[in-house]
């Protein structure tokens, strides 16, 4: 998860942006663009489209940062803008697919023991699983948000996120194991 120092620094950055300090907005963009692009890219298959979504995300963030009263929610706020922008751009293509039947709520205890350490393998694996699983797992692996915050971004209950995460990890593990056998 994000460290205390990073969390406080992010909050300070929001206040500096709200105060319209020189360079603060540029720093915000620089600090978050790669992570947002990674997330958007997992939602949008075309790179050009992803670039447009990222630009639009920044446009909304620049316009809205003055109204962000709680600086603590910056990561969640940015991911939510990115998601909504991607959704509205790809409405039809994305939104239809994103509606999945949520897996049953029961989560077995032994399922999460597998650890994902190889970033490149995970990156590859993410491209092989379903979009809703990919999305929840991407937010989880980006380590910026808690489960509750991921739920806020996705607009679902925390329990649903936990359940979705469990099945997404299972799906990813299956993909990676299959790849290891080849």
């Amino acid at each position: 998860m994000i460290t205390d120092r990073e969390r406080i620094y992010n909050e300070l950055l929001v206040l500096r942006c709200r105060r319209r300090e020189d360079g603060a907005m540029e720093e915000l963009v620089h600090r978050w663009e790669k992570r947002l692009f990674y997330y958007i890219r997992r939602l949008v298959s075309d790179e050009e489209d992803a670039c447009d979504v990222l630009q639009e995300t920044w446009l909304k963030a620049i316009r809205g940062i003055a109204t962000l009263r709680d600086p603590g929610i910056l990561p969640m706020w940015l991911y939510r803008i990115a998601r909504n922008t991607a959704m509205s751009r790809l409405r039809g293509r994305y939104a239809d697919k994103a509606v999945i039947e949520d897996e049953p709520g029961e989560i077995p205890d032994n399922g999460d023991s597998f650890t994902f350490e190889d970033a490149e393998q995970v990156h590859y694996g993410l491209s092989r699983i379903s979009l809703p699983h990919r999305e929840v797992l991407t937010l989880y692996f980006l380590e910026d948000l808690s489960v509750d915050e991921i739920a806020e971004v996705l607009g679902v209950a925390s329990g649903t996120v936990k359940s979705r995460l469990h099945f997404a990890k299972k799906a990813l593990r299956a993909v990676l194991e299959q790849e290891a056998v080849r």
Partner: protein
Amino acid sequence: MTDERFSDRLVESEQMSPGCRERYEREVKAMLETRLTPIQRFTFGFTALVGIGFLVVFGYLAIMASELPALARGGFALGSIFGLVWGIVAGRVAWKGVMHRRNIPNALTGMVWGLIVFVTVGTLLVTGKHPDSVRSVYMVLSVLVYFVMGVAFVITNRIDQTFIRTEEKFLQLELKLAEIAERIGESKQ
């Protein structure tokens, strides 16, 4: 994100292509600042000169026109300050050739305040010489409404800025403590 975490390595797996990056950077830069056309730059330059003109003329009247009532001279003094603000803001924009989106609201606050003060003082001066006293009272009352609204706007803005700065100070302290705690944690390991 400074420390190398799993997420940092994961993010590095996805790189923007050079063409896409170039376009993206250009667009984001354009979002943060609006580059002025030569005509716009000239207009800002001209506005700055007009502002400086106000500063000189009104400043001169405020200081030298001793036959005018104190209220009128005060109005001219405020008018000259207003001209100075216009001159500085417009001159800065014209000199740099770019207008930063983030700077506009701050400048706007100053401009709105200046305009309100200027109009209020101007109206008070005119009403002082108006023969119809009833109309004068109406004029004063209506301009005072705008003046009070302007004061409320400026005060709200100042409170907001002060609140942000106070919050910032607390967070800076918190950040220092978090850094110290991190260093202690590292030295223990």
